[in-house]
């Protein structure tokens, strides 16, 4: 095989990979949009607004073998708590399912 032929094969292969993944990209967007609009139509009207960051609430951690694991949040919203738990898991190298959080509290 000559250098030119290998270049053509390489470009063909790269283009092929791109095309397949572009089509997949469009398909995923399409089915996400279809499923999303179908879900909106079937869901009940006026979903209640989630409460603003409450001073104290409990959050269930991801399913573990011990399903009664709940974390107490004090002045911390769900998203921040999730990030904190994910960071602890990542930094320690311990899977989230093996960690038990008792409470997360904002210290001012």
């Amino acid at each position, binding site marked *: *095989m000559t*250098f030119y*032929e*290998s*270049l053509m*094969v*390489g*470009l*063909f*292969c*790269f283009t*092929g*990979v*791109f095309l*397949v*993944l*572009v*089509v*997949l*990209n469009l*398909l*995923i*967007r399409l*089915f*996400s949009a279809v*499923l*999303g609009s179908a*879900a909106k139509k079937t869901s009940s009207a006026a979903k209640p607004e989630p409460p603003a960051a409450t001073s104290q609430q409990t959050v269930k951690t991801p399913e573990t073998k011990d399903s009664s694991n709940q974390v107490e949040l004090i002045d911390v919203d769900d*998203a921040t708590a999730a*990030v904190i738990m*994910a*960071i602890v898991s*990542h930094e320690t190298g311990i899977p989230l399912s093996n960690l038990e959080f008792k409470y997360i509290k904002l210290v001012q």
Partner: protein
Amino acid sequence: MYIEAIRKIWEMSGFAALTWQHGVMILIACVLMYFAIVKKFEPLLLLPISFGMLLANLPLAGLMGAPMGEEAGGLLYYLYQGVKLGIYPSLIFMGIGAMTDFGPLIANPSSLLLGAGAQFGIIVAFIIAVALGFDPKAAASIGIIGGADGPTAIYLTSKLSPDLLPAIAIAAYSYMALIPMIQPPIMRLLTTEKERKIEMKQLREVSKLEKVCFPIIVTILCVLLLPSVAPLIGMLMLGNLFRESGVVERLSDTAQNALINIVTIFLGVTVGATSSAERFLRLETIKIIALGLAAFAFSTVGGILLGKLMCVLTKGKVNPLIGSAGVSAVPMAARVSQIEGQKANPRNFLLMHAMGPNVAGVIGSAVAAGILLTLFG
């Protein structure tokens, strides 16, 4: 009489048949075991590979011997059929699918493009391999190292160029372990401080229905477009469907634990056992190792450059660092993006954003393998 008996035992032993080439291979096997055990370089594969290499280079053991007449073949000969027939890599992909969360990819489907960009190294390595005198099948097998996907590399190489299997497998898994060293300098070279500091918006929530439909849609599309990719993509998506359906917990658990561990042992030992001295101690092996490094580097370059393009097109919403995660070493490449992003901006959490291209790269490298198999198989 006793001396004669001892002489006969000696002549029939492996010691008498030992050559310097065997000695070198035994030494290489021990070095690889050191890397696996002490340095913890991808030990799950490198340890069985290195031990298989050791077993194959102890003369007269006949573990890889084919059956002759009424005499049965060696143990590893029969176990190797799983590699030869493409069974083990496909089963490992099923386990990988059962362990993978495609949520970040579904939430941001543009990640697929970054996964595609990071296959650039496959093409570059292929072209250079042809220029260095490798035939197209061998060049394709070498190029696929750039996909940073062990099972895909083993699958393609066992079909196209089984002679090069040990060198390619060792190169692929060694470089995957070295990703935290290979990628960061390239990432820093190709991105500006300002680009590395870009914070990305939190990904949307992905519904269970989307996660269940995803593997079905990917399978239908990819296998209809490229039938040759059916074993890899089919098994990957089957494993993922086990995970996401939520109704076959036992099967999902088996796929991602017992099954993948058993297959990893068989795959690793038998791939290692193909590295006989005659196959491994050649100039081609050094070329493959060098080309493998080039493949990894250029894959990172491709992903980062496409990431920069997406950054420009989205007016700064995409951090180019996640492009390097398109190299499908899950989740190591995504972690590297996270670490480099945090070095520039401690408030930057790129891990979940990088997981999208990371898992997209698995699909991308399987598609690339399918195309190469269609062309040269």
